[in-house]
């Protein structure tokens, strides 16, 4: 049941669902507490997040800075819009590569599911230009191999 599901909703949204063997409270805290976020929201192997700001309140700021330890890196900024402990978070975010991408609104839900939690994240699908830029960045940072591998599975 831990398999992640990712599907598009029309050409506007991406919806990701994933089950976790922990309470909604724990999963919610892992999404809002900077000390916890820094341990898992990292992307490809070898990346770290030396700077993590997460002010979990309405209008609170978000800033994640990633580095590959070899001089490569980028950052994300955002703001929290709505927080319903421990069931729902709405925030906006943008990547800086280094120019900012258009704002993306992300809604994350945490629903009790048996002894664990079903997380549902719904985000705006970036426009074609943003996707091209992110793909180009991803390739620069050596993600090519991982998504070529995944393409053969998809």
């Amino acid at each position, binding site marked *: 049941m831990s398999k992640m599901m990712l599907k598009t909703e029309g050409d506007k949204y991406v919806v990701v669902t994933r089950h976790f063997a*922990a309470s909604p409270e724990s999963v919610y805290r892992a999404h809002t507490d900077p000390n*916890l976020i820094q341990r898992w929201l990292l992307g490809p192997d070898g990346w770290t997040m030396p700077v993590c700001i997460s002010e979990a309140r309405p209008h609170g700021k978000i800033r994640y800075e990633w580095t590959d330890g070899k001089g490569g890196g980028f950052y994300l900024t955002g703001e929290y819009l709505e927080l319903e402990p421990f069931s729902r978070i709405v925030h906006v975010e943008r990547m800086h590569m280094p120019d900012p991408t258009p704002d993306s609104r992300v809604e994350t839900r945490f629903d009790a599911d048996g002894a664990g939690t079903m997380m549902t994240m719904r985000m705006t699908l970036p426009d074609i230009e943003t996707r*091209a830029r992110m*793909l180009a960045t991803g390739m620069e940072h050596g993600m090519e191999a991982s998504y070529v591998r995944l393409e053969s599975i998809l």
Partner: protein
Amino acid sequence: MPTLDAAFSALSDPTRRAILARLVIGEATVLELAKPFKMTQPAISQHLKVLEGAGLIVRRIEGTRRPCRLAKPGLDEVDRWLAMLRSALEKNYDRLDHVLAEMKPEKLRGKR
């Protein structure tokens, strides 16, 4: 997709992005594309050449017309982006499983 750099540079132009958006609806000739964009046919042809070179569109010959349409690899770009997102998220959530397991030692009830 051997031409990501070319695709990336082709997409950097707003007119070429608009042409692609138009082609999502269906095939179009240079003449049909020139009209809404209020551009000359040679100017549109130049943009089409860049898009074709980047593998984003293909053109076929139909008598004297050369209608163009979106190339499959261009459409796969969304899938490529989603695959990159999927790869990053799967790694993240596998790590989150471990973080969550360490967050609740009190619930292990003296296991081991």
